């Protein structure tokens, strides 16, 4: 029996077509995976179903009846619940209070009463929670169970999970899959949004693949393979051979040895990372966002202390040094987020001087003439459209990035760490930044280029490493790399690649 049918759904955000005539169908009692790369339109499609967005075109049928869903409240009344990536729980309240919040008849709230109700629901659905615990004391996995129970408590028969495993540790993933399996057997229909092939092959009955907002097709799990799904996800047939763990041939500048670190959510973000970057080389680091690239950049910039391992710059261990020391040792850093590299309220010349303030200071007072001179020189050298005394926040994204570039490269660094250096830039600024990075490489620097833009990685890198779930999934020579191959590594289908 078909519970949900979405026909020809289109959704446009400005000039971006996020969903282009997408068809999607959900059968009662199945786990249906929605697979696709970041930005393929999976979340948009499900937000339309959950009433968070309205479709521009197309039709939604629930149990065969054409339905207009204007809000999540509508969706819940029609039996559709969603657990988003970012939890919507009130942390000082108890689990029971969170679950009945907005779904409590009348205005009176008896704590014992609702705890009893939630306990019953917990037993009935087999989703284990402690009703009287405060949400702020719960782990991420436990919070997710509360979110799921909160949806189930509202008598839904369709549950949408948006990348539910992204925030979980492996054991929690197993627990989640067990409860989903039980719920499925009891007749719940589940939509599972993911970009991870291995998970999709484990949990789902059918898989619908989206690419660039279009529906590529729906397959049964038993008729498909990771290779086929990867091909559907990235577009063309996969080919090529890889030599994993390819080493560079020049003189090593940066040697990362067995680095592990925790991320901001307290989860392990980096697991035993080892990489080498040599002089005259650009090493591209590809990966879907959230697989540890940000944390690695932070470790190398001195903003995050690893729990294990070493980072050697030449022969100097830098993983426990602070940003000022790392900069002075000859590392130029381009942060992932421009706002994090520049103080918007300070002037251009101040931002250019802050990283090496010692050079502009005598007896504690700043030599403003020298600061100005430095700014004037860098502005002309890097073609930044700004005056030294402009507030930095007034600059365009491209000029801000040039400012960061000027500061990072002006001292002829031995190592350049460029994280998402062209994100959000226009074509001209992108070209400029890429050329500067190539120039640095040709002048002998080692460049670690961290990017989610595969075209950028492929066009600039000498070697390419791919990160997946905090590990290096593979390293290959850029000559052998293709978007498909990288796409496979990025979605965690590494074993398969090694067999090809």
């Amino acid at each position, binding site marked *: 029996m078909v519970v949900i049918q979405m026909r020809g759904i289109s959704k446009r955000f400005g000039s971006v077509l996020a969903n282009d005539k997408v068809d999607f169908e959900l059968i009662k009692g199945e786990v249906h995976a929605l697979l696709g790369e970041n930005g393929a339109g999976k979340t948009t499609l499900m937000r339309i179903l959950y009433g968070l967005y309205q479709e521009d075109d197309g039709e939604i049928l629930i149990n065969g009846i054409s339905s207009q869903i204007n809000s999540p409240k509508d969706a819940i009344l029609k039996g559709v619940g969603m657990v988003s990536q970012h939890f919507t729980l009130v942390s000082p309240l108890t689990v029971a209070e969170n679950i009945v919040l907005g779904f409590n008849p009348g205005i009176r709230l008896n704590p014992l009463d609702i705890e009893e109700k939630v306990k019953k629901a917990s037993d009935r659905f087999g989703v284990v929670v402690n009703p009287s615990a405060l949400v702020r004391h719960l782990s991420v996995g436990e919070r997710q169970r509360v979110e799921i129970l909160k949806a189930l408590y509202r008598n839904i028969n369709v549950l949408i999970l948006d990348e539910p495993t992204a925030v979980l540790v492996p054991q929690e993933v197993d627990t989640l899959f067990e409860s989903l399996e039980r719920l499925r057997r009891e007749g719940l229909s589940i939509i599972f949004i993911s970009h991870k092939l291995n998970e999709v092959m484990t949990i789902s009955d059918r898989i619908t693949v989206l690419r660039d907002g279009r529906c590529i097709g729906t397959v049964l799990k038993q008729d498909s393979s990771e290779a086929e799904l990867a091909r559907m996800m990235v577009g063309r047939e996969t080919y090529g051979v890889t030599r994993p763990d390819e080493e560079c041939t020049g003189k090593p500048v940066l040697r990362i040895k067995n680095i592990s670190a925790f991320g901001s959510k307290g989860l392990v973000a980096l697991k035993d990372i080892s990489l080498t970057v040599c002089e005259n080389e650009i090493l591209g680091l590809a990966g879907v966002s959230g697989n540890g690239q940000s944390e690695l950049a932070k470790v190398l910039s001195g903003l995050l202390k690893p729990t294990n391992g070493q980072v050697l710059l030449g022969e100097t261990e830098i993983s426990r040094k602070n940003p000022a020391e790392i900069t002075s040792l000859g590392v130029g850093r381009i942060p992932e987020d421009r706002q994090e*590299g520049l103080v918007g*309220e*300070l002037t251009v010349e101040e931002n250019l001087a802050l*990283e090496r303030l010692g050079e502009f200071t005598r007896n504690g*007072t*700043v030599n403003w003439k020298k600061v100005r001179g430095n700014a004037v020189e860098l502005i002309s050298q890097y073609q930044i459209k700004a005056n030294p005394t402009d507030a930095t926040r007034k600059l365009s994204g491209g000029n801000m990035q040039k400012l960061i570039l000027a500061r990072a490269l002006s001292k002829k660094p031995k190592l350049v760490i460029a994280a998402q250096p062209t994100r959000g830039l226009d074509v001209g600024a992108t070209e400029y930044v890429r050329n500067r990075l190539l120039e640095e490489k040709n002048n002998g620097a080692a460049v670690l280029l961290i990017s989610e833009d595969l075209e950028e990685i492929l066009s600039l890198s000498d070697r390419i490493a791919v990160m997946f779930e905090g590990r290096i999934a593979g390293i290959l020579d850029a000559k052998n790399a293709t978007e498909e191959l990288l796409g496979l590594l990025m979605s965690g289908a590494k074993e398969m690649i090694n067999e090809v």
Partner: protein
Amino acid sequence: MKFRFRIERTPSPLWMIALLPVIAVVITFVISMLILQIVKANPFEAFYYILISPLSTRTSALEVLVKATPLILTSSAVTLAFASGYWNIGAEGQFFAGAITAAFLGTQVGAMPSYIAIPLMFMGAFLAGMIWAFIPAWLKVKMNVDEVVTTLLMNYVILFFLSFLLNGPWRDPVSGWPQSPAIADSAVLPKLLERSRLHLGFIVAIMAVILVWFILSKTALGLQMRAVGKGKDAARFMGVNIGRTLFLTALISGGIAGLAGVTEVAGIHFHITDAISDGFGYTGIIGATLGNLNPWGAGLAAIFLGLIATGAQSVSRSMDLPVFLGNVVQAILLLVTLSIILLRNYSIKKVT
């Protein structure tokens, strides 16, 4: 063609930012006018006594500066702290730390000439303010304890400590009142002008404004402070030691607030009581905010607040109104200013 207006979250143009304090004052007066209506006072007459009358004679104009002296110090102290993103609400307590030290040193320096006794008192008070600011600063830097809470609570701790001193060891042996013994003559701050109470403390206050301006705009530490205040993450990325910067900020700010204790003890009262502060530390927050976290602006704002304080007395004397009317006006001014300052981040755009 029809014009419509839309409010956008982009920073206001510069001329608007400069105009905001003026707008705040105007709105304040409109609101206070309503209150004056309630007490059946003629608002124009009242405003004359609050704003104009204190400036109309030499004596009362100088009295405005006398009232402004501790406020200039606390306002610059708070300006330095807030500009660096350290929310020091403890200038009141740091003031008392300085005042207690001045009251103590003032009684001990009778044998010394003034040119030694007075600098000694100022140095002692600066140090005491720093010490009082130390605990919250240390907790903030080492354990990330919110300084808003700790600096505020430290204010009450020192009030109780002072109360202990005044009811115990320092109780005036002659009158039995809870007030400390009078300080030595050599510790009294010299008057700047004949026939007025304006004293050396005013010069110290102006020097404090210059000091804060110098630190913030001329020194490496000041640049780092501003970077931390405006963008902590970016400052950390650029290698600024956030903990060290906040720590130094807190101590210098505390020291400057401590100086205000000397001007009141050695310039005005010559002893200490628990009523010596007219909320100078808290008013410093108003001064700093009203002055847009610019030391010169804070200095001017402090003088303006001194004017209102003087005016509150003159209006109550002349029109038989309660003296806390001035405090009411001050409070309205703070609320209005804080609301208006939010507007700095918005612009009104014309939509065609």
